[in-house]
């Protein structure tokens, strides 16, 4: 699969010159959601904590960055830092809720957290604009002194650069001891403890780091979409991300982005196919994926072995 990365990066860079502005904006959105999916893969695949709640720090980071964009700073980097730190802070605050849970209990608690955040976002009108959403965030300039990102192409390339940098950092970290330790926790937690590893602390750090990535993606959403509503962070988004991660191979952070791209493309294609029947077809897609994917993975493994 590795040989695919270079052409994929090339295609991603060339895309805004080949596609119309609307498609470019859609691609930017896919990049942003792909980054959230990478944080889901970090928890679900690498650390073994299946999550439906990464939309929560995603939302927290997005609303924080939007508030910053509306009221003070229009510099991209400060917005990214704002999003990441609020996402991390949100995760740190919710760590006691999740860190002792595993498996299906983790899935359930994170789902409840994600849903509560959406509910809170639709009620807290003064900050989030409620269900009407929040609009009018100006386009930022990436750094002090650089020009404003005033086209879809510029915003897309900005998102691509940020996502690329974050992904490289995450992949490099996971190749090192941090990745070993997290995979060790996933494989056999008791054995990690018996070797002296503080499993709870590792998982808490992974959870907070995933929160920071999702929060950073949230601030990127403000830049690329320039509009926020609670629907951007709903349960269906969380489920789509999880499906993308499973398609991408669960343990692979890069695969998560590819999987999310596939899932989002399939969703848009399905809702264009039969207008108004999108959710029905999407539901069918989930059901089909649940049956096909494990078999596919099994077959792939046999082909490889």
């Amino acid at each position: 699969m590795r040989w695919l990365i270079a052409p994929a990066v090339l295609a991603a860079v060339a895309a805004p010159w080949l596609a119309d502005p609307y498609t470019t904006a859609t691609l930017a959105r896919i990049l942003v959601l792909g980054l959230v999916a990478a944080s889901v893969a970090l928890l679900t695949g690498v650390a073994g904590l299946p999550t439906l709640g990464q939309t929560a720090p995603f939302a927290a980071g997005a609303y924080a960055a939007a508030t910053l964009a509306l009221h003070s700073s229009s510099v991209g980097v400060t917005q990214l830092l704002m999003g990441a730190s609020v996402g991390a802070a949100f995760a740190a605050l919710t760590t006691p809720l999740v860190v002792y849970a595993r498996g299906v209990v983790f899935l359930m608690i994170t789902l409840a957290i994600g849903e509560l955040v959406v509910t809170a976002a639709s009620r807290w009108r003064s900050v989030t604009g409620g269900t009407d959403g929040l609009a009018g965030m100006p386009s930022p300039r990436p750094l002090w002194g650089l020009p404003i990102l005033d086209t879809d192409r510029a915003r897309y390339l900005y998102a691509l650069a940020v996502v690329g940098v974050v992904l490289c950092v995450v992949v490099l970290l996971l190749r090192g001891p941090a990745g070993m330790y997290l995979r060790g926790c996933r494989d056999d937690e008791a054995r990690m403890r018996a070797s002296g590893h503080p499993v709870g602390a590792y998982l808490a750090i992974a959870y907070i780091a995933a929160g920071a990535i999702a929060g950073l993606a949230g601030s990127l959403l403000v830049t690329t979409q320039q509009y926020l509503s609670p629907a951007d962070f709903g349960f269906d988004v969380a489920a789509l991300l999880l499906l993308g991660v499973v398609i991408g191979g669960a343990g692979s952070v890069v695969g998560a982005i590819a999987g999310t791209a596939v899932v989002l493309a399939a969703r848009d294609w399905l809702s264009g196919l039969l207008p108004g029947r999108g959710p029905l077809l999407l539901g069918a897609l989930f059901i089909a994926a649940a049956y096909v994917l494990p078999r596919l993975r099994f077959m792939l493994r046999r082909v490889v072995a």
Partner: protein
Amino acid sequence: MRALLAVDALSRRYGSLVALDRIDLRIGEGERHALIGPNGAGKTTLLDLVAGAARPDGGRIWVAGRDVTRLGPARRARLGVGRIHQRPAAWPSLSTLDNIAVAGARRCGGYRRTLPAARQLLSAHGLPDVTAAQLSHGQRRQLEIAMALAGRPRLLLLDEPAAGLSAVEFSQLSAVLRDLPRTVTVLLVEHRLDLVYALADRVTVLRDGQHVATGTPDEIRASSTVRTAYAEAVI
């Protein structure tokens, strides 16, 4: 001799079953101490309690003069309590080298600093560098030992290390245990009495959670109480 492991009136119950009944034990630094007794005597329970994998219902445990009774398994491992499990349990998705390095990392200043020692252990135990899931049973046991040694334990708990080994593997294991430096204190649970008598400085006999006798291998072999204890259990 200073006691590296001290156990005072240690008790553990499972419901109405008393698995360990107020056991006292002193093991000196560098000593090889074996725990024997019929099935259900409480040997593995005692190892679990010392490693922190289970909580006692009463009594105290000291390691190197420190009261560890309330510490979790990770804290005890960082103090130098290592264990070789009855069923070898590596991290299946990591390579054998990474398994050894991760197992030793917390006692040796991190994963990267453990790598050289891990490479040595890998070749010393004749292990290939593949993912742990691909190993045979005998290789897994070798890996388990290498993982325990990577953490440079002060106290090594061995839970039936000879179970299910071939004759060749058994003699390899005996050699590894014999060559352990005297900086490592060993508490061994084993059914193979030839290994026990060859290795142990002192032996403790347990039965039904009760302490029966402690002594040198010769004393234990000669003791009539021990023989009756075993014989009754067998009958």
